[in-house]
């Protein structure tokens, strides 16, 4: 069971909202004297009240929230994070870096993506650039610049922001949730919630989620995989995080996903040892409609 405490500026009981000293400059002499006496009397009363053990903080007790209620509110918050909009367009910058023993490869791919409230989503690849590096004297040197590829554009599914919720909310029954911490941030509370798969054998991540109680938005997620989902290919999933941000219009969208995996040596060193990827989303635009010229026929 949770309690929320809201701090208010301290004010001794019995004191007027405007301090008498502020009126002194504007008052005639006799009034000054009256007010001075009044201030002394009231001030003495307030001092007595404080001395008798009155606190300088007003505690406002709100309804206690259970963890289930917090998660339920998160669900509602997720459903309204893009409320009022019909569709959205944005740019996705995908960067993938593959690491071998003495070489690495960087791939930058740019997409323009669209999704709407029917669940439809599509992304179009705008271009890709590949650079290869070699390790010479402990310094990475460009060995081959494959240049930019801007040939045929590939269309594929995008991200269903309007209809999809984070997996741990979609499939709540798979996880055991724990309230780890509460932090007061300015005038609202941020909950830190942990979750782990109920079964030790499911290839599902465990993680930590930060929820802002201002509309119950998820602001940050960190995931860990206890059970490797692809044990024959992946040695380890080193990290996985997703960060959300509020746009100037009040919409909440995730703006970056970062992940890193360690690969098994299944092809005698030909496959990379490690791969890291980032997905950065930006240039969000809302309610512009579907542009078939950019995204192709629907």
């Amino acid at each position, binding site marked *: 069971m949770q309690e929320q405490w809201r701090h208010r500026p301290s004010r001794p009981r019995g004191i007027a909202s405007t301090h008498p000293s502020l009126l002194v400059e504007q008052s005639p002499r006799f009034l000054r004297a009256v007010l001075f006496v009044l201030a002394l009397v009231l001030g003495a009363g307030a001092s007595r009240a404080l001395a008798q053990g009155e606190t300088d903080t007003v505690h406002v007790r709100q309804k206690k929230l259970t963890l289930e209620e917090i998660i339920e509110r998160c669900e509602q918050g997720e459903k309204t994070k893009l409320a009022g909009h019909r569709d959205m367009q944005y*740019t996705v*910058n995908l*960067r993938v*870096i593959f690491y071998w023993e003495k070489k690495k490869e*960087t791939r*930058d791919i*740019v997409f*323009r993506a669209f999704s709407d409230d*029917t*669940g*439809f989503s*599509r992304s*179009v690849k*705008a*271009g890709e*650039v590949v650079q290869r590096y070699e390790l010479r004297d402990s310094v990475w040197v460009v060995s081959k610049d494959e240049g*930019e590829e*801007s*040939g*045929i*554009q*590939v*269309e*594929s*599914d995008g991200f269903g922001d309007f209809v999809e919720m984070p997996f741990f909310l979609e*499939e709540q*029954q*798979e996880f*055991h949730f724990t309230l780890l911490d509460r932090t007061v*941030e300015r005038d609202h509370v941020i909950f830190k919630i942990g979750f782990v798969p*109920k*079964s*030790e*054998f*499911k*290839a599902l991540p465990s993680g930590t989620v*930060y929820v802002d109680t201002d509309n119950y938005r998820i*602001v*940050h997620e*960190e995931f860990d995989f206890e059970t*490797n*989902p*692809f*044990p*024959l*290919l992946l040695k380890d999933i080193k*990290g996985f995080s997703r*960060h959300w*941000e509020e746009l100037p219009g009040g919409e909440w969208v995730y703006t970056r996903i*970062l992940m*890193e995996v360690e690969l098994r040596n299944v092809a005698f060193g030909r496959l990379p040892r490690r791969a*890291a*990827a*980032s997905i*950065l989303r930006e240039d969000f635009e809302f309610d512009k409609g579907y542009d078939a*010229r*950019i*995204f*192709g026929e*629907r």
Partner: protein
Amino acid sequence: MRFCTSMLAWSAAIIGLAGGITPVAAQDAAADSAETLHERLKREGERRFDPELLESNRAFQDSALANLDSLGIAAQKKKARFPLGYDFNFGERLWNYNRVEGLVAAAGFGLTRGSHEPWATFQGGYAFGSEKFRHFETLEIPIAPEDWGLSVAAQFGERAVPYGSNRPRWNSLRAFVGGEDAQDYLGSLGGAAYLHWRKWRSLRLSAGYEAAEESSAPATTEFALLGDMAPVNIPVEDGTDRALVARLRLGSLARYMARLDAEHRVAGGDIGGSFTYNRTDLDLTLRRYFWRQELVLQSHYVHTGGDAPVQRLADVGGLSTVRGWKQRALVGESSLAGRLEYLVPYDVFERARVPILWRLQLQLVPWADAARTWDGVSDVWITSAGMGIQHFLGEFGTPTSLRFDVAFPMGPDRSRDVRLELHFVRGVF
């Protein structure tokens, strides 16, 4: 706020000088104290990863997006030298190892213009056991805007296909290594055309027409690495099967913890063909957690009417219905099979530190199976119970595990008292 920040910085600097902290660190500390939790989470999240990941190639991004905005996707496509995209596949619909075809080695390719465009695949292979060329082709055409989820599909092929209720996961691997081919096969030459409707992940509906010449397939291959395969394949009734078929999938085991698969098939009559019958299949799977304890209940009901050929009759027995009993142990006009499994959520071997086993991530799965047929030769309940130990292998389309089952068949007609099975299982989540 800035005043507070600078005050904190100076305070930290003064304290830091006394304690050996540099003014730079003090400034960092001041910056830390000024940032919100949201900003701190972002910064700490980034710190876990290679900074290179967050570098942006802004010039390239801008030029690529400007190119797309000015030309549009259609103009970009026209620039392509070949209007169709193509890819190669491994002939996954044909690759096989079984007692009627031996090894079927296959390869193929696909052609398409884009993600929501007609898509054709061609697969061909050679069956070393039956010494025949095998092929399988598909064509899928979207017929409405993508979000409607409507498409028509056609397929044609010549190959050996399994029949009956037994469909163990990766049966070919099991047959090749251990000689345990748990399916029966018939030769099929024909095709089908369907109208598909897919809405969300939890609703799929398709209706269509299937026509194929079906014939008995003799066993041609006995070889297996660790023991020969039985050189027998039960003959079927030869003839042409023409049928109208409707299929429905409702629900999902990940989100709704329940899934219903239904199929109804009407053959013969005005449609023509050698067989006149109808067959209904209903599959219901339920998954429930009781705190952390997970139970899975699967049931399969089949009803046939008319004069169904032997390959379309209902059957039970074998790995997919009642473990411990041989495949097609009972055959009748109707059947009902049920299975209950308890997936122990704890790594018992790890907690008990059992030597060797504690690092293998072995999951215990106690289970019980039961089934019966109606209007067959012997209409009795056959049951079995046992204990499985499984190891998760990975996500191969569906989660797949290697399972060792100790099965105790029950009932007076059982062929043996205990049966050991090593097989692959498909996870239901």
